[in-house]
């Protein structure tokens, strides 16, 4: 430890102040590093600069350069190195500067990290985290959602929080998990003022693999995650107000393993299912969810299962294009209205 003073901005919860989703993530990382000296960080510009989004601001001076490692620009190399350190009992947390840049590490994640336990090389307790998502005019390479590139890989877990509380609790659970976890943080939620909340000042975790009912409802189920949780809730409120339709909104929180039970129970209650995701359409998680509901709750369905998603295109830069590309609240309202009246 270089500097014994904990940076002020990491003590908001201790002071009872509300935190943003980004601050919740910083607190989770910081607390886990304090509590467990096996936890260390690897990534581009995370030390002196504090990370492209300043998630690790102040970490270097507190923990030193052996636990906050600025890496060469080589996502495959440092993710592979994280795997090696995990073999030796450390618990690395890798930051992708943007999750779009996880693609050079696809090889080592899918072929090595995800298979390690199964191949007899032992557990792989590591987290790969970073910013995802569109709406920030970032263009094709600073806006992607990467979950479906990894959803097909047994051995990985994928987490995608929508609130500061969940972000902190899920990240702590991910760091303590003995399996490799890909942790997606939506940039539009990072500093969203409306999401700021006061968190419990204790060592809480949110278990992986459990969805959360954000809003109870009886007429239809909206299954969603990430930034779309907030658009879906907004849509549900519009439907309640304008149509008297009550929509249940389920936030998946963990995408892999998927909480089938929560999805199926909600569909059995409402008989109608709308799946909303910001990721592109073809090969999106909606297809898998619909298949599972077909297997487990077909007879409870009163309407076809529908989805609202981004368009099958690279994420465009220009505002007008990106807004058209992304699923919007109005799309959710329209689809839910159709379903409710089916």
């Amino acid at each position, binding site marked *: 430890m270089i500097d014994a003073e904990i940076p002020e901005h990491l003590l908001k919860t201790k002071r009872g102040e509300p935190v943003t989703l980004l601050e919740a993530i910083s607190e989770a990382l910081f607390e886990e590093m304090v509590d467990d000296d096996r936890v*260390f960080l690897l990534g581009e510009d995370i030390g002196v600069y504090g990370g492209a989004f300043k998630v690790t601001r102040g970490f270097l001076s507190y923990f030193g350069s*052996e*636990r906050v*490692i600025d*890496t*060469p620009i*080589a996502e*495959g*190399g*440092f*993710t*592979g*190195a*994280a*795997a*090696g*350190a*995990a*073999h*030796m*009992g*450390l618990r*690395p947390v890798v930051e992708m500067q943007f999750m779009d840049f996880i693609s*050079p590490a696809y*090889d*080592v994640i899918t*072929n*090595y990290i995800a*298979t390690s*336990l*199964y*191949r*007899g*090389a*032992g*557990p792989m307790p590591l987290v790969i985290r970073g910013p995802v998502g569109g709406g920030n005019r970032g263009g094709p390479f600073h806006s992607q959602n990467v979950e479906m590139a990894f959803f097909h890989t*047994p*051995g990985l*877990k994928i987490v995608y929080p929508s609130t500061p509380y969940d972000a902190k609790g899920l990240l702590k659970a991910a760091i303590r*998990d*003995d*399996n490799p976890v890909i942790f997606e943080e939506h940039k539009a939620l990072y500093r969203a003022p409306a999401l700021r909340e006061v968190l419990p000042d204790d060592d809480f975790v949110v278990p992986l*693999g459990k969805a959360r009912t954000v809003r109870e409802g009886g007429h239809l189920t909206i299954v969603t995650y990430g930034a779309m949780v907030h658009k879906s809730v907004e849509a549900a409120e519009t439907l309640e107000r304008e149509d008297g339709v009550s929509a249940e909104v389920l936030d998946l929180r963990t995408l892999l*393993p998927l909480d089938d039970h929560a999805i199926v129970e909600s569909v059995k209650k409402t008989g109608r299912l709308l799946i909303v995701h910001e990721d592109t359409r073809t090969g999106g998680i909606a297809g898998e969810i619909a298949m599972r509901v077909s*297997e*487990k*709750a*077909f*007879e409870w369905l009163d309407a076809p299962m529908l989805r609202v998603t981004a368009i099958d295109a690279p994420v465009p830069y220009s505002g007008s294009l990106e807004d058209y590309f992304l699923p919007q609240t109005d799309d959710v309202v329209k689809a839910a209205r159709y379903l409710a009246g089916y």
Partner: protein
Amino acid sequence: MLAPTVRAAGAIFLFGGELVDFFRQYLGRGSGPTRGREANVHWVDFPRGILGPVSHLGTMIEVMAGVTLAFRLRGEERIGMVFYGDGASSTGAWHEGLNFAAVQRCPLILVVENNQWAFSTPTHKTTRLPSLSAKGPGYGIDAESVDGTDVLAVFDATRRAAVLARAGEGTRMIELRYYRRLGHAQHDAQEYVDPSEIAEWEKRDPIELYRARMLTNDWATERDLEAIDREVIEQCRAAAERAMAEPLPEGEEAVEGVYTDVSPGIPWTRSMHPDPAMARGVT
């Protein structure tokens, strides 16, 4: 920690790997080191410090960079050795792993087995450099080339590198120059190689050369060496027979060990439930 290639079984035996496990692994036995999960020559034996190879060449250099980073971060005197071939020296993973290890001064020894052939591609088609150790200075690390047919020269070079790596001198590279006398695998008849090239290298069989040296120096007699040959062949035969007599794993073990805590479940068509909606804990 050791990360061998598929051709470095000798290194595994030096780490305590047992012959019977070699055959169990090859035959996919449930009793084998990877319980029938990994391929025939991908011998993972973590308790013995052996991280087996994966087919994606270069990956193990990245992984061993991290293994040895952990040694350095914890102030341990342990070191790692990662083996790879002339072919893997072209991959991006090789570059990224080596560069990371060099920058972080990881106590890692890279051992490149330059056997002149990557499947059917000769080394001169994969690099303009006269030797693979010439790549070392590009990463700011010490590297040397050794006659890989000279057992004692290899031993000396390895010992020197190990001493320096343990002393905190960071990452280093040893190129072993020798020859792949047979094809890439059993299916490969090696038609792309000039037979005279093989004949030349066969004169430099490292085992034959070392036998001659032992005899010349009176380190052993012909009888001693023949006794060792007979003993080793007998051990191999016994180990192979033992492994062959052991069963394959139960099929349903395929669902185990994907995660430490959750299971993919049994396919419902193989469960007792005729209706998928009624089948619980299955997929």
